[in-house]
């Protein structure tokens, strides 16, 4: 039987302060987006964000412990068996653990569209490798992501970061230029990102 307890899922501590427990990736689910979250360093369970970019409806179910959700500025303390459905993708939402054992299952997708695996899943999955300097592993995960989502600017940017750190300036510059051309935001980020210290003086560096 293909099963896992939430405590046995991978625990990927994100720099933002929450712990990502990949569910969709663990089971190879293709039909919808789903992940679990437990508290990280700053007690967040659900990262503060909106779904404006993806247009996803999202539902957060408390599986264990207590969580204080703040949705569109309103606080709601929820316990096991309680859920919040955020229909409007533009609403800011965040969940903070009120107990150490808190666990939340999130389900999301865009109404009327077949589910596409979100690019952020690959960037999240590459994150611990990047933090630990495991450049080969980070590259493998991001290349897998770019195969699934060709040309995704955020993954191209992250791949460029990894390659710059790993001492592969030519690859890094190719991918950074592609990311900056696809989305101006990444051209701006690149100007101050320490990851690019080794290639910033190169004439090919995007300005």
């Amino acid at each position: 039987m293909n099963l896992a307890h939430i405590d046995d899922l991978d625990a990927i501590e994100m720099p933002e302060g929450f712990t990502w427990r990949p569910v969709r990736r663990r089971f190879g689910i293709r039909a919808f987006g789903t992940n679990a979250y437990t508290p990280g360093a700053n007690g967040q369970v659900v990262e503060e964000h909106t779904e404006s970019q993806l247009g996803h409806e999202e539902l957060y179910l408390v599986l264990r412990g207590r969580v204080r959700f703040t949705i569109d500025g309103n606080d709601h303390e929820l316990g096991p068996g309680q859920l919040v459905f955020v229909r409007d993708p533009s609403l800011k939402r965040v969940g903070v653990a009120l107990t150490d054992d808190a666990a939340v299952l999130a389900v999301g997708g865009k109404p009327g569209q077949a589910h596409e695996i979100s690019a952020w899943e690959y960037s999240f999955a590459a994150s611990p490798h990047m933090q630990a300097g495991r450049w080969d592993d980070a590259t493998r995960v991001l290349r897998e992501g770019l195969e699934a989502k060709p040309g995704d600017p955020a993954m191209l940017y992250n791949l460029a970061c990894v390659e710059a750190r790993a001492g592969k300036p030519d690859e890094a510059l190719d991918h950074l230029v592609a990311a900056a051309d696809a989305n101006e935001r990444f051209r701006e980020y690149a100007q101050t990102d320490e990851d690019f210290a080794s290639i910033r003086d190169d004439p090919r560096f995007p300005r």
Partner: protein
Amino acid sequence: MSSGYEILSLDEAEAAQHRGSTLIPIRHLLGFEPAGINAWRADTGGQLIPPHEEDSGNEELYAVVRGRARFTVGEEEAEVPAGTLVFVPPEAFRTAVAAEDGTIVFVVGGSAGEAFDAGGWDSFALADTYRQAGRLDEAKAILGQLITEKPGNWAVHYNAGCLESLAGDADAAIEHLRRAKELDADGVSAQYFREDSDLDNIRDDPRFQELLA
């Protein structure tokens, strides 16, 4: 359903009876669109998930929210505590029984590569539960909503016909069933018309006999 977000407590939500199980029709109650979402609730020994395969092609993820559940998937059995996730591919047989009082299993389903399109079985289960409880206005409101959302879907009209038949309104039942038959280009409904006990109240009506012809 116009507000930007909504809180739902599975303990307090409306529940429906469906194939010997107690269903919390989350998708229906919230109007969630990207996937099918429901929960099942039972006390020790009670059936949580009605035995089935997903002929719809849906992948399903089950999450034990509270208590303990004994799952059967294919030939395998496992009794698992709250916090356990179980993934079941469409073709696998699955069922689950509660191993503790107040057990709740949450489920998400959808088909890979396809936009989710709710068939409405969960809405109909709630409508039928309302009907059995004598809450006919609420039952009819759900069917009315389904017909508005899916005007060309024969099964929705057929289910509305069943509900009206059971509720004793032969005129309304015949009207819905006539529409169902018109829409059912492949004639899939003929067998249901012949055999469904939900229609026994109107079986002797000459107008129903015409629909059988």
